């Protein structure tokens, strides 16, 4: 029984609607459900799913569409009513917050009327509209953080041209995190303020480094996100990165500059290196997966290349604290690591030979991939630079696999796995059925924007997976790291404890987690 309801003039943001969809699908008797705005794309999706009718044809992007398939008419009616109730609850919650503090306006201009001193617009609208609002914000002299993805490349270039003429920052598009003046923006952690200034083209890379800088006793002056295309695409040419570096160079509160990115377009890489050298400040650069450092030319004396995110944070913290850089292999002693490896590698069944990394952070997944490949041989991943190692079906793992669950293929109609843990727990259930899996490698990203209790969502499924392996006569080893600080609202220690109680080994960084996972696997293979 398929049922369709359209409510005119009732706009809601997509993340909220995706969460409502998830909740609806999880309720009893519902076979399938979609709660979405009536955009062309969604209407097409619904008609592919077999929903039709004049209501649907007449729906527009401002109209809410609820589509339910259920066992019988009564269940479908109940589910549709439930969907509208969910939507209304959000509305009334919003109205309540309007009464208690969150100031609201109907447009950017009206908002500026209420807040004439506004200096930053944070934009997370659908990509098709985001650039337009960003341009308006720039025209009114605001810096822009553009969280939205799916902003066309030409729009990004035009926006950044427009912005650099005015000296304004455009962070993004697809910029998930930043820390400006000590304030975490979008997905960001509460880190100590300090003198390390960060400019990063990768979201969770920025989060990992700022959290580790905090842990190593230094702090962050500013952390600017640029969006992934800023450096990678030659036509964008690193406009945001170059402006950020120049500003951090001139900022008296910044003593060390950190740059994190995937390998940039060659000319852009040289321009960034030149800007860093010109800054005169000590700089740390980490380019994930950079194969040939020669493309950067000879770094100036003030520019240090880091080998991974942890190394990047350690170097920056040491420079900020005026201490010499001491490379660290493990936070724990070698003996303790060996003891853990012994313990974890004992009890693998003969079939258990593979590693599976289930990541919510894209940069963290990349880092694990780049660290593991030299140690384990070929690693499959949807983030692979080698197309031969991209799994033909992203939903199915083979051999050693690192899955970036934040990839678009996993987020169609679903919120990002940092918000909604079910993408990962569903995949975890699948991996648990595979007797070849020996080690699971996980990240856990805390901070604003993320799920309030990601460890709590994972723990029962980890226990179930471990029980399944045990029932097959083996042992599933789970290694994780938590990106966060003690000030993050989820509670760093609490999250670690929950993972440990579920049988995971929690390492102090993504690098150490990946290295430990490799070592456990190697130990197991050697037996």
């Amino acid at each position, binding site marked *: 029984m398929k049922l369709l309801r359209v409510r005119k003039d009732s706009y809601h943001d997509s993340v909220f609607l995706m969460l409502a969809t998830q909740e609806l699908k999880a309720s009893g008797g519902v076979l399938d459900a979609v709660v979405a705005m009536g955009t062309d794309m969604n209407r097409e999706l619904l008609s592919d799913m077999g929903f039709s009718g004049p209501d649907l044809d007449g729906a527009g992007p401002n109209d809410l569409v609820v589509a339910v398939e259920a066992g019988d008419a009564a269940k479908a009616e109940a589910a549709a009513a439930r969907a509208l109730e969910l939507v209304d609850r959000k509305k009334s919650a919003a109205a309540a917050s309007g009464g208690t503090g969150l100031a609201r306006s109907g447009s950017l201009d009206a908002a500026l009327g209420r807040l004439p001193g*506004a200096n*930053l617009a944070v934009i997370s609208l659908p990509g098709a509209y985001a650039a337009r609002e960003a341009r308006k914000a720039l025209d009114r002299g605001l810096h822009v953080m553009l*969280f939205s993805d799916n902003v066309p490349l030409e729009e990004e270039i035009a926006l950044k041209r427009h912005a*650099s003429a005015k000296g304004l920052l455009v962070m993004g598009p697809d910029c998930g995190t930043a820390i*400006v003046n000590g304030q975490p923006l979008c997905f960001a952690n509460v880190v100590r303020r300090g003198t390390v200034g960060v400019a990063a083209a990768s979201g969770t890379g920025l989060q990992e480094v700022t959290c580790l800088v905090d842990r190593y006793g230094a702090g962050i002056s500013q952390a600017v996100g640029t969006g992934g295309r800023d450096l990678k695409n030659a036509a964008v040419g690193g406009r945001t990165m170059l402006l950020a570096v120049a500003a951090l160079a001139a900022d008296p509160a910044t003593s060390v500059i950190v740059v994190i990115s995937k390998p940039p377009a060659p000319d852009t890489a040289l321009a960034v290196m030149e800007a860093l050298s010109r800054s005169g400040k000590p700089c740390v650069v980490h380019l994930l997966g950079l194969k040939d450092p020669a493309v950067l030319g000879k770094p100036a004396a003030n520019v240090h290349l880091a080998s991974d995110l942890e190394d990047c944070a350690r170097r920056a913290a040491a420079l900020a604290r005026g201490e010499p850089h001491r490379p660290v292999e493990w936070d724990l002693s070698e003996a303790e690591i060996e003891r853990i490896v012994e313990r974890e590698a004992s009890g693998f069944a003969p079939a258990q030979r593979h590693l599976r990394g289930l990541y919510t952070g894209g940069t963290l997944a990349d880092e694990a991939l780049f660290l593991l490949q030299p140690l384990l041989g070929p690693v499959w991943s949807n983030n692979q630079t080698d197309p031969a190692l991209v799994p033909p079906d992203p939903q199915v793992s083979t051999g050693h696999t690192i899955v970036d669950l934040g990839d678009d293929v996993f987020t169609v109609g679903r919120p990002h796995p940092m918000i909604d843990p079910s993408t990962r727990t569903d995949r975890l259930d699948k991996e648990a059925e595979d007797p070849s899996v020996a080690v699971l490698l996980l990240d856990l990203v805390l901070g604003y924007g993320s799920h309030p209790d990601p460890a709590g969502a994972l723990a029962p499924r980890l226990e179930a997976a471990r029980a399944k392996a045990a029932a097959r006569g083996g042992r599933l080893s789970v290694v994780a790291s938590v990106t966060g600080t003690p000030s993050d609202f989820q509670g760093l220690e609490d999250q670690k404890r929950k993972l440990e109680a579920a049988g995971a080994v929690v390492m102090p960084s993504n690098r150490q987690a990946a290295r430990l996972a490799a070592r456990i696997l190697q130990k197991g293979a050697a037996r």
Partner: protein
Amino acid sequence: MSAEPMNVKPVLGLFSGDLAVVNLGLEGFAETLAGRGVPTVQVDWKPPAGGRKDVIEALDAIARNPRVAEANAEALSRILAGKPTLVGIGTALDTVPGMARDLILHAGPPVAWKDMAGPLRGAVIGGLLYEGLASTPEEAQTLAASGKVRFEPCHHHSAVGPMAGVMTASMPVWIVENQAFGNRAYCTLNEGLGKVLRYGAYSREVLDRLRWMAERLAPVLAKALALRGPIDMKSLIAQVLQMGDEGHNRNRAGTSLVIRELAPHLALLDEPKEDISKVFSFLNGNDHFFLNLTMPSAKCTVDAALGIEASSVIATMARNGTEFGIRVSGLGERWFTGPASVVEGLYLPGFSAADAARDVGDSVITETSGIGGFAMAAAPAIVKFVGGTPEDALNVTRRMYEITVGENDAYRIPALDFRGTPTGIDVCKVVETGILPAINTGIAHREPGIGMVGAGLVKPPANCFTDAVLAFAEKYGN
């Protein structure tokens, strides 16, 4: 890549100042910042122009023309400079430009007899009977359909009319002059509630009242007004907003003020006591008497802003019961219309939405000038129309600031700390935000001859605003 000199000052300003954020999109981001004490405003965003690409492109093209903002500032300054002044009472034929014996003026955009809704048809029948052009309703209908009488909007003759808005040659009219610009506007005298011509009633009692108004009421008032001298309407309207009227659906304070203004002079007239007493009783018994003074005041005020090159300010809104229409300053006399809506309102005992005619009348000229629904926050006594609480009324007015060019400097709202009412509706802002003008209105019975059945709020059809934006972009887009 060469090292361009980079302007880092604005970014350093961001780094060294206090963060203040406008958030568009996920509300959680704003809640985080607000919770941390960062000044943050959440924009209740929805796709502009209902997501229509062609309309968004039109808005962008208009935004690229710097003349538009200048022209809108000019339109607003003309509206604010307006000085509507009641100067007298005349007969339509002698005073209203272009008025003729075979001409019937009506509310709203142009409409042919065959397309007229019940209340307007009834008022036309009543007008023809009143003028003696027909002797029975049937004759009147035949005449109306014959093409031997002409129908034109009041707005084409510097006039406005509430509800059906029918004005015929021998009716008395208020004359209000905008002394800042010298232009005048005209409106009939208000007949009261119940069975009245403007709601489409044409029975003997309706026609008798109209005759009494022309023969006794108007001459008496005209004489008193002559003794009193011109009345500054702007000052009266400013006062009524501080006395609980919003200038459209509540006119009790305004009507009282007019009685106060005229009473000393009425007392001096050499007229039969009974007539003067009846005039007082009529004014006292008709809370909406002041509406027909507010309307021409608003009309002559916004008329000064019609026809400014490149201005996207709405200079006219009006309904004829079949269609809702607007005119935009920079597009001159051209109407953009959409189907008239059903009014969402409260009904008099014995009536329901099933009895309601569609939205009708020129009284929306009050909203066009920045009062009426736009001043809802001034009228706590009628908050039932907008949701029931004074907070709802405040929110109606607050929302209107989002679609106007500026604020009134004379019309102010006590409950908003004497903030000026939102004034100068920008059609581009209406389409951009999807916020339609808030319009208060009365509700007529759908059948001619019955009269008023309720009052409420009406949502104008969105398409007339988008159509106007598309046409505006064609002429002024860059």
